[in-house]
């Protein structure tokens, strides 16, 4: 019971991170395709107020794994060492670039660094997710794999999928936060990236069955939940595809792409989770075998569980304090 509750907390952290830093990193990737320097700055400034809070979900995700499933934390990370390290390099560059560029404009080079680092971090995260399908090598509970043992073409595919998916989220966010030409181009490009993500994701769902961790849909319950969630995901994606090219100035036209993509993202991750439970890494690292002692789990559920509403409230506050369009008024910083 306690294990399941904590697994739910870990899942909430993962979903919050993917959605929030997904749009955030996606805006960075999108900025690479923007030739107009003023537009690039708008994109950077639109995430300057929130990147810190979005990225904190990644730290909480890591720590939630460390504290609740210590055996997984201590073996999965060495397993995915190189992509994780490269991703961390990129996150360092990105965080510093955002502040440098907003504190000391125009900072063109920092703006470019922000875009490149966003791209590398997105790909690194997708690649890391992909390594979760290759077998983990353990001896006496400690990692003994080799440096490139977790690398595969499947991980490259997930890397590309996540990058394109984040970019679609980024365009959805941009459409909501801008007006005029930037909003229009975000609508066009968002349509393309959303469609591309759907195709890539279909390829992932086929290819995953050739890895060491194929989808487990053995019981009727699993198959039903998996199918239902994919249906939700399709609904979300269709909503986004309809919403993106809708150019009228209305709240619905602003909100539909982002809302649809959030539903799709959450559904896809939940579906993969359902088809995978309780395996963390193949062949036999499971939720049950990695869980921490009872005393720890109680402390975590009380200490961190009770703080979760506060954490969500801070996130809402941070996003609401800077609601509205960015390029119609003043920039993030004068």
């Amino acid at each position, binding site marked *: 019971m306690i294990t399941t509750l904590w697994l739910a907390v870990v899942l909430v952290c993962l979903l919050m991170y993917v959605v929030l830093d997904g749009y955030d990193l996606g805006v960075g990737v999108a900025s690479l395709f923007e030739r107009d320097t003023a537009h690039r700055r708008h994109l950077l400034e639109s995430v*300057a*107020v929130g990147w*810190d*809070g979005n*990225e*904190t979900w*990644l*730290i*909480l995700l*890591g*720590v939630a794994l*460390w*504290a*609740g499933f*210590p*055996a997984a*934390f*201590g*073996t*999965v*990370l*060495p397993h995915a*060492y190189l992509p994780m*390290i490269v991703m*961390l*390099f990129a*996150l*360092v*560059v990105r*965080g*510093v670039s*955002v*502040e*440098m560029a*907003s*504190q*000391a404009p125009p900072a063109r080079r920092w703006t470019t660094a922000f875009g490149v680092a966003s791209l590398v971090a997105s790909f690194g995260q997708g690649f890391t997710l992909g390594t979760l399908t290759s077998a983990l090598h353990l001896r006496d*509970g*400690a*990692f003994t794999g*080799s*440096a490139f043992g977790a690398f595969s073409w499947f991980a490259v595919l997930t890397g590309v999928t996540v990058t394109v998916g984040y970019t679609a989220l980024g365009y959805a966010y941009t459409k909501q936060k801008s007006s005029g030409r930037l909003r229009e181009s975000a609508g066009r490009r968002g349509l393309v990236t959303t469609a591309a993500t759907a195709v890539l994701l279909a390829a992932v769902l086929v290819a995953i069955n050739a890895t060491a961790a194929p989808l487990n849909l053995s019981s009727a319950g699993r198959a039903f939940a998996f199918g239902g969630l994919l249906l939700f995901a399709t609904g979300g994606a269709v909503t986004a595809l309809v919403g993106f090219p809708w150019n009228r100035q209305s709240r619905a036209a602003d909100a539909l792409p982002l809302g649809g993509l959030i539903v799709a993202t959450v559904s896809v991750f939940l579906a993969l989770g359902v088809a995978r439970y309780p395996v963390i890494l193949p062949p036999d690292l499971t939720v049950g075998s990695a869980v921490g*002692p009872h*005393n*720890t789990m109680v402390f*975590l559920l009380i*200490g*961190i569980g009770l*703080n979760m509403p*506060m*954490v969500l409230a*801070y*996130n809402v*506050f*941070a996003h609401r*304090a*800077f609601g509205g369009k960015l390029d119609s008024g*003043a920039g993030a*910083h*004068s």
Partner: protein
Amino acid sequence: MSLLGLSRWQFAITVMFHMTFPAITVGLSILLCVVYALYWRTGRAVYLQMFRFWRRIFAVGFAIGVVAGAVITFQMGLNWGVYGAKTGPVIGPIIGMEVVTAFFVEAGFIGVLLYGDGRVRKATMFAATVMVALGTLLSSTWIIAANSWMQTPAGYRIVDGRFEPTNWTQVIFNPSFLWRWPHMLAAVLISAGFFVAGVSAWYLVQGRAVGFARRSMSIALGVAALLMPVQLYLGDNVAGHELPYQLPKLEAIEGNWDNGNTGFILFAIPDQAAARNIAALDIPCLGSAIAKDLSCRTAMPGLKLTPAAGRPNMAATFWGFRVMFLAALLMFGTTFAATVLRIRNRLWTARRFHRFVLCTTPAGILAILGGWVTAEAGRQPWVVFGQLRTSAAVSRLAPGEVLFSVLGFSTLYLIMLLAYVVYLVRVLRIGPERDHPRHERPPDTPDSSVPDSAGVPVRREVAVR
């Protein structure tokens, strides 16, 4: 170099780089609260100017501290996977509390603090500033609790080689926490104080933005003057309450290999393999006096008391402590002199003293780094003292992977450090003049200098940009 050596260097580089930034920003976040409160109460422009200027320096330093700190969390699993798996049930929840009670608070309000000018009310701005400062303080608290547990573990049992908590109160309020916590808080306030005082001294030497510089220096040195004596007392108690649990650390700090020395070794070049000092400068009887025995009979224990396999590296521990201690004495002297000058009403005319304060800008940061080297190097060869050896805690990665990450982090962090320094120099050159509310008038209005409050002749300020 071995896998263990590379992993330790990687950790040392990343953690010292990270610590440099909280050493500036925790104290700055509190300074921001104070000056914004003053601005809110008095409405005086100079306080808004101070708020905006120090916020520029805070903003980028805070961001670097955040991203470099995120790296450390993941290193616990990446490079120290066995440590992560074995201590996760105890340390993990403490860091988890840090994330939910500190990181999210900071992250939720930093946006308003940095970009809220003209968009939010003064009350909201002040509340956001307070919340960010509160977050930085809470963050320090949890981190010190976690690290202190590694120094003096308590409230746990070991089941199948894994640490499991039995009593959370004992885990968090472990024997060394209660002294190390205030020691660290005072340290970050003092280091920020010297940083602020040093920057302000530069403007005083230049004769620029004098009103701004005087108020900044006055607050910074005032706080440091109040805290320095307290800090010497706290530091003494950290030694008194932690070292009985960790005798090898004390032996290495003192720099003695053999028992019986009643003196205090000021400088030494230790030879770890031969277990002797190649050179040492010993002051007779001072060691005994520091141990509160003026009769010159209390001797210091030597590192040979500890078997070779349990000895920390003496050079790192010894010199880490010396850097901290000598920097503390320098800072104590500086604040003492500042207080005397202030009482005699000469603080703003003592130009040589301003130059001196400028030189002490990094003193507090160096003291903190030295202190951490003492704490961490002196705990070796253990990662959880007496329970888990560092050599047993490391991830069994290919050395090439770790070499890649060491080189990557070194290069990246060097570039980030340079970028921050270049940014600092640029912000300093442009100066606080642009942050004065009067600067916001249309560009055709000439820029006039900040009013001079103490009647000392002031050179007209030049806006560099």
